[in-house]
């Protein structure tokens, strides 16, 4: 390793009142709200392009919000808490439901284009909801429409929000226990960058990239969790990774999101069948669907995995999803041109079933915050999927975008208040020197892409929806070996444009401790609940109505437990 003698003085520096890390739904809403509440210099960063990376743009369809005439956010809250299997923080969940509904209405004024039905919004009833509550723009592109509307609104705000893409934040800067900004890799040039900010919002989404098959994007490496943990913040409920049960498995389908079968199920029901083309959900505790989409995500994930393990899966190891009983005219009526895109992939739904299986989709856990989205670290807030607590052990369908918008708005308002208060110390380059030294360090070549693939395989094998003590121990050991291999300095040299091998190294540095946090929490929770299923502890244990908290003390991540907040 060849640590250069460069220091923070070599990095480009930007100053902001409010720094927002991540430009998905949560980050863009936070930036808009911070500017509206008077922050004059909001800096909105994304490691990809603004409004095009992350999970929001990948959302297919449904956004849960109590905006119908006979609905109330308290009904939505009851369903959210029930889905959370006893672990949701009711105050955070209430904010999701109440503020989320306001955001949906505001987004309507920003011309997102919610689908209409009569005088109100069109809505579908997703599994786990007591009534039709999920609004949408389009059956397959609600996420892109939400991203587009927010980005247009960010642009309308004007110069108060400076947007910069291709910036991967690698560390938060901590002074006297407060976050005062960040250090980052400017991916386009390979150069180091520092940012000073009175308030910093982590809006980086979840950790689905830890798994080989996932439904989000390259960007969801859990980096926000690692940033927050290192800065002294507390993580909670890290063991609860939601797997979306019917991710596309086979045949190879390109140019379409692997969770695209969800809207098909909403509209057309469809049949989930085992390798012998038999109904099987009932065998694992599900109800006969009778053509309706009613099975919750954790139960469907359980049933598909167990049926395949019993040797009754589809040829690629999942289940069949069939619409062959649906007349072609009805398929076309529901999905028009999408039927042709499927045909280009060799899939004729009138004739062929497709194979589906669970795919990493969302993370219920995350950064622990109060009702203003503040972490325990002054100057540091979180928003969106990066926040843990509202969704407990299992997230209700349609709550992810709502959560992004609501928490983004709340965090943006609080960040503007903090910036105006002057309560955070001013950024000092000296505090960023270690982070910058890492960004400008050089080292031998490494196959970091191969290491990311290894991490994804080991997490999929041993830390998927079903866990055992032995599998978790194996994962822990493999992660330790990977950590040693990654070492202390990135491969190559600074200043190389779009250096993905180096970017992967910085990602691994975030992914490994986050994967370890999932393993640590999953090992400790000796029961099964929601998205965390222990094959060696198959029962839900009322004594485990506890949230597990993780924090870094020195070099060690320590775990503690708290009764669920009232």
């Amino acid at each position, binding site marked *: 390793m060849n640590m250069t003698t460069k220091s923070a003085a070599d990095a480009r520096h930007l100053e902001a009142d409010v720094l927002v890390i991540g430009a998905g739904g949560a980050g863009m809403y936070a930036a808009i709200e911070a500017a509206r509440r008077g922050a004059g210099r909001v800096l909105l960063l994304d490691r990809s392009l603004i409004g095009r990376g992350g999970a929001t743009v990948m959302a297919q369809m449904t956004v849960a919000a109590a905006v119908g005439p006979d609905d109330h956010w308290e009904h939505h809250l009851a369903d959210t808490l029930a889905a959370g299997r006893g672990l949701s923080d009711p105050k955070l969940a209430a904010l999701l439901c109440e503020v989320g509904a306001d955001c949906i209405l505001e987004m309507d004024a920003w011309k997102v284009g919610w689908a209409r039905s009569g005088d109100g919004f069109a809505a579908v009833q997703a599994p786990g909801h007591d009534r039709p509550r999920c609004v949408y723009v389009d059956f397959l592109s609600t996420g*892109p429409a939400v991203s587009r509307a927010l980005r247009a609104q960010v642009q309308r705000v004007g110069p108060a929000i400076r947007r910069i893409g291709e910036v991967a934040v690698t560390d938060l800067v901590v002074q006297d226990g407060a976050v005062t900004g960040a250090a980052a890799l400017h991916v386009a040039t390979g150069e180091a960058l520092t940012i000073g900010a009175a308030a910093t919002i982590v809006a980086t989404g979840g950790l689905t990239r830890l798994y080989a098959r996932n439904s989000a994007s390259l960007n969801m490496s859990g980096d926000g969790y690692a940033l927050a943990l290192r800065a002294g913040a507390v993580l909670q409920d890290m063991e609860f990774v939601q797997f979306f049960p019917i991710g596309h498995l086979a045949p190879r389908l390109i140019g379409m999101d692997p969770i695209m079968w969800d809207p098909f199920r909403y509209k057309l029901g469809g049949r989930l069948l085992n390798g012998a083309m038999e109904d099987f959900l009932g065998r694992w505790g599900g109800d006969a669907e009778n053509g309706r989409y009613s099975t919750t995500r954790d139960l469907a994930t359980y049933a598909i995995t167990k049926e395949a393990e019993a040797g009754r899966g589809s040829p690629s190891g999942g289940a069949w999803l069939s619409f062959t009983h649906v007349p072609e005219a009805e398929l076309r009526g529901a999905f028009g041109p999408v039927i042709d895109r499927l045909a280009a992939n060799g899939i004729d739904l009138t004739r062929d079933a497709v194979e589906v299986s669970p795919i990493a989709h969302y993370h219920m856990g995350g950064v622990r915050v109060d009702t203003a989205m503040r972490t325990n670290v002054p100057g540091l807030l979180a928003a969106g999927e990066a926040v843990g607590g509202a969704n407990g052990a299992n997230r209700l369908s349609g709550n992810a975008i709502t959560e992004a918008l609501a928490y983004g708005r709340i965090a943006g308002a609080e960040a503007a208040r903090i910036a105006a208060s002057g309560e955070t110390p001013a950024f000092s380059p000296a505090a960023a020197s270690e982070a910058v030294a890492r960004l400008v360090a050089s080292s031998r070549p490494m196959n970091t892409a*191969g290491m990311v693939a290894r991490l994804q395989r080991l997490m999929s094998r041993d830390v998927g929806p079903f866990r055992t003590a032995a599998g978790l121990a194996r994962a822990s050991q493999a992660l330790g070996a990977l950590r040693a291999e990654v070492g202390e300095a990135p491969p190559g040299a600074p200043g190389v*444009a779009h250096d993905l091998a180096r970017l992967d190294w910085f990602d691994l540095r975030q992914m490994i401790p986050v994967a370890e946090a999932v393993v640590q929490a999953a090992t400790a929770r000796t029961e099964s609940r929601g998205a965390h299923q222990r094959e060696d502890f198959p029962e839900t244990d009322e004594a485990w109505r506890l949230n597990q908290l993780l924090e870094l003390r020195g070099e060690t991540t320590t775990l503690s437990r708290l009764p669920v907040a009232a």
Partner: protein
Amino acid sequence: MPIATLSIHRGGLGEAPRRDAFEIGFEPGESILDALRRLRVDRDPTLAFRYACLNANACKECMMLLDGKVVYACTARLEPREMRLDPLPNKALLRDLATVIAPPDERLAEGGSAREGLAREGLAREGLK
């Protein structure tokens, strides 16, 4: 298993461009992006190209030239022949197949500017360069 030969433009701005050829087996239906991602894992982790979403055609970042025509790497299918991949010709080159496609007002300005809110210390240093 059919085999595609990807002939890929390599090198960054100011470097003499070269081409690398990779033979890669594929399952029918797989995309160019599937192959590029696999090449990074198995053969050359330094290969540079852009993408954020995974074959969903949502991020629209993976535009490049296939045999001289603009395609999305995530929707162009592999074929059992030589396939020539080049960066977009009308965009500034970053490296290999990656080009500068961010809107100008969403980039980190070269050399910094007052609009970026650069700290005084940073500005002074930029001036010295």
